């Protein structure tokens, strides 16, 4: 199977701005219907969260979605089984916290991801220094472990992160938790440009990207955007798969209006 990074690079290099919506696994009984709807609405990859009891980097919306999913009995095994059955064309990137990824050992976790067809992994509380063994386990399972970079990350560390990240680099647009914001953070563009200066890996901006206009603005400097809380709020408010898909189509349309990076821009 073509790796996540290869697939993302191919699309990016064709001039497409990339879109990765986020969905909490198990949040509703029909969550895989939402998953398919997002895939059909123009997602280039989908981030699926395995809910954790104590999500310390998440704001109220994803905290609530996690609580709802856990109350419904969501488990790692159950979510992966649902993903196995849903077999969508779009690559799936699982995100979860370290305690769940390490619970039965990173090797076993990464193999389970791969068996379910998952191609990428995000673990926000595994920074560079703590990601070594999980990174090795992910590589062995052909899963790309994407690392986070933040506006506070100094230059040298940013290079190390970009080098060791796989699949893409997750650029955290602001100093804060996940959640909707009224405007794109001022720190977003600078971070995306700094990352593009040190890596050719796809750079995704996430955190606080809430509207099509914000997505388009973010994509002027990044290769793609991750949209989570804005989608999850709609879902928690009762949106059906057709309406979550509608929101993703509006993001897709906004991104398609952003001019592609020129060859001169790329990597520099």
């Amino acid at each position, binding site marked *: 199977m073509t790796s996540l990074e290869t697939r993302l690079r191919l699309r990016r290099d064709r001039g497409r701005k990339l879109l990765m919506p986020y969905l909490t696994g198990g949040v509703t009984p029909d969550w895989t219907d939402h998953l398919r709807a997002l895939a059909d609405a123009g997602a280039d990859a989908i981030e699926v969260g395995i809910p*954790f009891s104590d*999500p310390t*980097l998440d704001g109220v919306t994803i905290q609530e979605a996690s609580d709802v999913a856990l109350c419904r009995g969501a488990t790692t095994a159950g979510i992966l089984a649902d993903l196995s059955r849903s077999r969508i064309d779009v690559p799936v990137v699982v995100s979860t916290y370290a*305690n769940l990824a390490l619970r039965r050992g990173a090797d076993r976790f990464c193999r389970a991801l791969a068996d379910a067809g998952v191609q990428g992994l995000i673990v926000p509380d595994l*920074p560079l220094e703590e990601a070594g063994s999980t990174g090795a386990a992910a590589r062995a399972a052909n899963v790309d472990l994407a690392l*986070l970079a933040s506006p506070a990350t100094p230059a040298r560390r940013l290079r190390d992160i970009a080098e060791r990240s796989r699949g893409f680099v997750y650029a955290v647009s602001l100093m804060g*938790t996940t959640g909707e914001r009224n405007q794109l953070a001022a720190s977003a563009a600078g971070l995306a440009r700094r990352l593009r200066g040190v890596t050719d890996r796809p750079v995704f901006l996430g955190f606080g990207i809430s509207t099509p206009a914000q997505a388009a603005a973010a994509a002027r400097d990044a290769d793609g955007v991750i949209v989570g809380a804005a989608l999850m709020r709609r879902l928690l408010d009762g949106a059906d798969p057709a309406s979550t898909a509608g929101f993703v189509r509006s993001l897709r349309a906004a991104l398609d209006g952003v001019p592609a990076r020129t060859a001169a821009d790329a990597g520099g």
Partner: protein
Amino acid sequence: MEALALRDPTAAPVAGRFGRHGGRFVPEPLIPACEEVEVAFAEAWADAGFRADLAWLLSRYAGRPTPLTPALRLSTELGVTVLLKREDLAHTGSHKINNVLGQALLARRMGKRRLLAETGAGMHGVATATAGALLGLPVTVFMGERDVERQAHNVFRMRLLGAQVVPVRSGSRTLKDATSEAMRHWVSVTEEAYYCVGSVIGPHPYPWMVRQLQAVIGQEARHQCAEQLPAGTPEHVVACVGGGSNAAGAFAGFVDTSARLVGVEAAGGAGAARGEIGVLHGFQSLFLQDEQGQIREARSAAAGLDYPGVGPEHAHLRDLGRAEYVTATDEEALAAAVRLARAEGIVPAIESAHALAWVIRAAGTTELPTGSSVLVTLSGRGDKDIATLMTYLGDGEAE
């Protein structure tokens, strides 16, 4: 530093490891802030001027050294020599002030303009509010809503001292969730605010730094035991353990002696005694969790012990077999609090009463043989627990 060891000799050296525990499991946005604290504390700790400022505050402001009180009547009743390290007599009524004065001085030295803290029983919140008032730093304290309700006295003390108390409504609405919320807030204010962690938990350097700042408990007690005990050192050193800061401080003074080290956890929050390895709040250690890895909610009458994990150094001391971790129930702790009040005229915090409860249970058995000596850290005073004790006596032992 001496207790820090690499998790795995083949892995890249990672700072802040206590055996396989500890580390710095925080999201990338918090890494520079943790590094900044680490560098600043290492420099400050090596600076005689900083140490002198702290020593001055500890003696002239916080009332150190605290006495070592022989619990004469209790000792006679139990048949063991019980020595109480009186942290309840430190300013603000608990050992928390030792840590907070050090961290608040550090925050000022780093040029930070405000302090953040989490609190369970409210003792760390009160201590932080106090240090903030003293040094002119505004303080924001995150406290679980359940704890806000059951520790109303301390909530008012914090507000009286000028601190803002933010009730946390997520999860179990106790210390675990207050800590999560403090970390969430910290991410957005790392430039201006200093996160003053209250126990030997959190990402490196906190478990190490807080232990260093609390080691004064053990150092003083060691000198005092040398004066008061014919043998010079106690045979047992006992302290209650939530995150484990008073125990870490007491143990630091005796880890290189033959004293047996015993940490007493709440039966409903026994991370060290019953937890499994995991990662929460920036560190790897032992946590109460289910099969899936979801963190379980701790439940204790002592809000300060209502934490599902334990500091990484304790987990390491347990791995090494150097310290033992046992539990006491709410009922045993409340009974111990009443017994100390009546035998010695000292009302302990329900947290501290867990350590006494184990001593009372173990005295005269092979665990704590008749004639042996035991040092107990009385980590705090019981004023904050008066309502709980009133309910307890009203229900079970009415006058």
